[in-house]
């Protein structure tokens, strides 16, 4: 089981010291460890959702978490985003141990996410939804807002400019004033990504960004994810079921099954891991 637990990067020949950076084949800069999960165990009553899992996420990489249904992937993402608090283990972010934090405090550290079942604010327009991503950057006081005094309006317009850049980037200009409730599924997913990006996160968590999409939509979404990583240098951790997509997109992959980690490494390494093959294809019992 520990056979594939390697610290090395896909393009490097030898294992690297943890803090060293390197450059991938396609020219992206991968830095040191940004986030580290140490021996995480999460239980709900008697059910163990995550059992003693450790892995890290490096600056600038695209890290995938895969596994069969019920493997604990979403729970893992929820631990990272501070929604669940593990009973055991430590979460380290940028060199500091993170205590038990409220989800909104985690968001303020620069961690943004999307959701498996879209969690947009249905009563608001696309523009307002994306603007909510920048709430933590808006500092004008209560009185200034109440009177729409200089600073409040200036701040609103500055943030609007930033949001418009993301709207352009994700090619959703024509729907910016539409209430999100009216949008089709694929566009909702894109708006949700826009909202997460609007926060200009250092770490972006994507929970099944391509679930329920057709091939064309998946290609679009893959392109956006790669562009985000490439242009903004955003570190990305994602959960995805589509193996082809995962193997193409990600630099390193964690494989989970029944709450345990059964593999960790580059897509090529994971693909040839016997435990992973067993978990996905089943294993003959005799």
């Amino acid at each position, binding site marked *: 089981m520990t056979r594939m637990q390697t610290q090395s990067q896909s393009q490097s020949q030898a294992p690297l010291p943890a803090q060293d950076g390197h450059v991938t084949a396609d020219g992206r800069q991968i830095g040191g460890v940004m986030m580290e999960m140490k021996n995480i165990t999460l239980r*709900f009553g008697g059910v163990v959702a995550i059992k003693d899992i450790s892995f890290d996420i490096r600056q600038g990489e695209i890290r995938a978490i895969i596994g069969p249904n019920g493997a604990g992937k979403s729970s893992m993402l*929820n631990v990272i985003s501070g*929604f669940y608090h593990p009973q055991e283990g430590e979460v380290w972010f940028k060199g500091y141990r993170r205590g038990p934090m409220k989800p909104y405090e985690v968001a303020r550290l620069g961690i943004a996410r999307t*959701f*498996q*079942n879209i*969690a947009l604010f249905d009563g608001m327009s696309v523009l307002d939804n994306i603007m909510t991503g920048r709430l933590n950057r808006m500092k004008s006081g209560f009185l200034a807002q109440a009177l729409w005094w200089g600073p409040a309006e200036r701040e609103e317009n500055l943030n609007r400019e930033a949001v418009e850049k993301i709207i352009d980037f994700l090619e959703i200009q024509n729907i910016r004033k539409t209430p999100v409730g009216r949008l089709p599924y694929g566009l909702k997913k894109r708006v949700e990504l826009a909202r997460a990006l609007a926060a200009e996160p250092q770490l972006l968590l994507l929970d099944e960004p391509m679930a329920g999409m057709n091939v064309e939509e998946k290609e679009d979404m893959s392109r956006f994810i790669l562009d985000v990583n490439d242009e903004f240098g955003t570190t990305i951790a994602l959960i995805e079921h589509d193996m082809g997509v995962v193997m193409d997109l990600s630099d390193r992959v964690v494989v989970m099954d029944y709450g345990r980690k059964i593999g960790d490494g580059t897509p090529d390494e994971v693909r040839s891991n016997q435990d992973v093959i067993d978990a996905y294809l089943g294993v003959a019992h005799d």
Partner: protein
Amino acid sequence: MDQFFFAAEVVANGLMTGVMYSLVALGFVLIFKASGVFNYAQGVLALFAALTLVGIQQGQIPFADLINAAFGTSLHQFGWTVPAVLAIALTAGVMVLLAFLIEKLVLQHLVGQEPIILFMATIGLAYFLEGLGDVMWGADIKTLDVGLPQGISDAIEGATAEWFGYGFFIDRLDIWATLIAAILVAALVAFAQYTKQGRAMRAVADDHQAALSVGISLRFIWVMVWSIAGFVALVAGIMWGTKSGVQFSLSLIALKALPVLMLGGFTSIPGAIVGGLIIGVGEKLFEFFIGPMVGGATENWFAYVLALVFLVFRPQGLFGERIIERV
């Protein structure tokens, strides 16, 4: 020692009030479980039932005021009185008809709306029914008498005086009300647990779509639970109407079922029963010990504040399951 007996008497009275709260709360729980509707109109249903019962019993002409105003007539009475049992049966019929109309005119058109919209619709319904009751039967305070015994029970006073040297003052009406309510509560629980309709009802409560797919008629279940709620309201209306007259405040007393539900959890039948007893005893004891210090009439708010404070510490209520939030 007297203080202790006073308190014991207060507790006994509180328990009896509590059973009535439990009964009305059960009406809420049944509707909430079967249709997801939080029925604010439950209290007004009780008022409406009591008004209708008095009206039928005394042979009032429905809508007399309206007819008189519109046509210049001066109608008031048919000139007959209806025996109590028959009047109760007729009123029960009216409540079933009302349940049918509510399903047909209101609920059917609100299927799939958010729960809070349904809740507000029942507030509108409460206003409508209050107005309808007044227009049909007049808004004056009425006395209701269906032949239930009333007055302080001499037997209990005598017996307790002999045993403890302290005579308990307990109204015979309260004893009867408690007995009837207890029987009804037991019957409802048995109905929900052991009959075919009860099982269908619980199935609907769990999942509308799944219940439909195994051939349960949603409309039938809804009419049924609203009829039951109407019947429960009728019983509560009779008890409270006999005690303190049929008037608007009756619908507010029935609203006490709301804090009962908060305490017990909206979907729990045992919760409704235990919650009712706790609130009944709690508010009587509070009024007894603390009331005199703060000017009395604490029953107006005690139940709500108790439920509020309780929920802050245990949001799922007494018997609710721990809520695990998901994203």
